[in-house]
């Protein structure tokens, strides 16, 4: 696939992971000794930045790198702070807004491709 599609796909996966982490935190909020989980997207964001900056990056390469960029990025936070529900719900909402934007962009893009193939509106 081309570069933009792969970048959007990585973004979608990041938003999904964010929502997953927030849901897991909410589900376990009242478990004694539970420490809030956090996802660290440093690698994935670096990858996206690289895709933007470097002309050598193409879709296939990004797909290959993106498949490992989101492995093992979720870990328990160091601070023994309890889960704060409002924070997690907010994470969930932000992730959902992000996901919706990206899916809209993706469908617009595919509509454009379809238009190019069909040759008419």
């Amino acid at each position, binding site marked *: 696939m081309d570069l933009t599609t792969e970048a959007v796909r990585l973004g979608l996966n990041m938003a999904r992971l964010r929502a997953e982490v927030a849901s897991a935190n909410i589900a376990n909020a009242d478990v004694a000794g539970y420490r809030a989980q956090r996802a660290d997207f440093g690698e994935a964001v670096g990858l996206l930045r690289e895709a933007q900056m470097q002309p050598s990056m193409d879709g296939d390469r990004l797909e290959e790198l993106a498949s490992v960029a989101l492995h093992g990025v979720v870990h328990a936070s160091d601070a023994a702070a309890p889960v704060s529900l409002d924070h997690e719900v907010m994470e969930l*909402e932000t992730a959902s807004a992000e996901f919706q934007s990206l899916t809209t962009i993706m469908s617009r893009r595919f509509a454009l491709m379809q238009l190019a193939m069909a040759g008419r509106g």
Partner: protein
Amino acid sequence: MNVDSIFAASRFGLEFERLRLEAASHNIAIANTPGSSGRPARLMRAVAPHSPGFDAAIGDHARPELVAADAAQRQVHDPSDPAADRNGMVSYPRVDLVKEMSTLVDAGRAYEANVRAFNTLRSMALHSLDIGSGS
């Protein structure tokens, strides 16, 4: 300032107001508990981290926190209290109840305002997706 950092600002606001509420409730709760002689009671306060620039002060990595400070003492003469010292004085933390109660109400309102701001921003962001989708 992009949309993400406005979301981060709202999130910071919510967390800060929650801590203010927590601090005020804590202070009210200990207002009438006698302190032991060696350890004075401690009053809580929510503080925002100091950093240059608005964006950095409320950004993703800034976290508000609670700090404790020694409370001023209020001495009451009550020899029958088990916590009384040699002279029959019991010390209570000096808590300004009017201030704490107004903080409580203020923080609650500000929390609601933050939620409203977040919802407005979210619906704006989602509405912007409808631009150009011919209806």
